[in-house]
């Protein structure tokens, strides 16, 4: 199984980036083997529609579960279409979140948990 995590850095010691569409990296990891790759998020600087674009990107990578902080409405719609499970509310270190995921401690999102443009640093 492949899970994608939004990350500020390129390794498992990095901090979770709580934004989805505009996160810096995706860490795509197999929780059983802990093998991972870091993919930089091409949509981070998109003028708009970063969420759906990021969803397309991780869907193409064959991701089944997303672990992140926040997901907006357009992103959620796209992730749902992709059939990707969305776990929100994460922060802290990537490695710790994987452990929490394995323990079943992360919460499943059934809708967007923030409004549009929440990841745009105070700009609306």
């Amino acid at each position, binding site marked *: 199984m492949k899970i994608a995590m939004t990350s500020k850095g390129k390794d498992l010691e990095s901090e979770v980036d709580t934004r989805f569409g505009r996160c810096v990296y995706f860490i795509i990891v197999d929780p059983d083997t802990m093998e991972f790759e870091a993919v930089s998020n091409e949509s981070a600087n998109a003028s708009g*529609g970063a969420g759906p674009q990021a969803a397309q990107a991780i869907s193409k990578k064959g991701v089944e579960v997303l672990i992140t902080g926040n997901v907006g409405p357009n992103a959620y719609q796209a992730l749902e279409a992709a059939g990707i499970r969305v776990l929100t509310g994460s922060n802290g270190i990537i490695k710790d979140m994987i452990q929490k995921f394995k323990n079943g401690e992360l919460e499943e999102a059934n809708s967007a948990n923030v409004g549009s443009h929440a990841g745009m640093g105070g700009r609306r």
Partner: protein
Amino acid sequence: MEMGRVMIMAEAAGINIEKMKRDTMKISVASGKGGTGKTTISVNLALSMDNAMLIDCDVEEPNCHLFFKEPMERVREIGIPIPRFDLEKCDRCGKCAEFCQYNAIAIIKNKLLFFEELCHGCGGCKIICPNDAVSETEHVLGIIEKGGMEEMELYHGLLKIGEPFGVPIIKAVKELASPDKNIIFDSPPGTACPAVEAMSDSDFVILVTEPTPFGLHDLKLAVDVVRNIGTPFGVVINRAGIGDNRVEIFCEEDGIPLLATIPNDLDIAKLYSKGIPIVEGIPEFKQEFIKIYDKIKEIVKTQGVE
């Protein structure tokens, strides 16, 4: 020399013929910071000039009409073409999604998703589709209304609540500018797309500011934008007396013409609060606005020769 030849030579020299032909002017009234008095300047300048027409380009919050007694009348709706997808013909090749600069289209797991509010109506998806699966339908963004007075018409655009994107309405309302009239465009505040659109194609830009640190900070941003557009411009300081003289120093050091200084005056504020133009309440003020217009004419004339 006959006029036709003059025109051909002028065109070859890169001179704007359309501008040469008319002796009227298009002036945009803009500001980096909101609430500096763009509408006050726009309305009073338009009322002080001969043969003027006022176009309120602040489509998110037009307010020039508050200074006129006649109610605004609806002229027409303004929309953009948005795509409609024929899912029988569409084979989910993803070319449209890849093309869309605004990420309004996504193809995920053989599903096509369209995010209407992200679409700018460019029509690129229709052109790029190899399967002829895209047709267009109009998405209404807002309306244009007309008001003002018999001797000075006012048009404004009004963006629908919830629509994030006013530029097409600004373009549409600008098209109503009559070439035989002196046009005042009251621009939206800021330095983003709507403000740039409202300042483009004008002969002159008036930047209205207040003499405060905020006013100066946002004036500098606006100056950078107008310099990029390449239009001659000058500054009006409104509510002079509330801050300091740093705006004046900045203008002097930067070689920016100071067109006028309007005092922070209780009588002006009272008129404003009642929706009465200054030049109506204090007719002597008309001279001040005529002076602004004369200064602009002078600047445009000398810059045109250079």
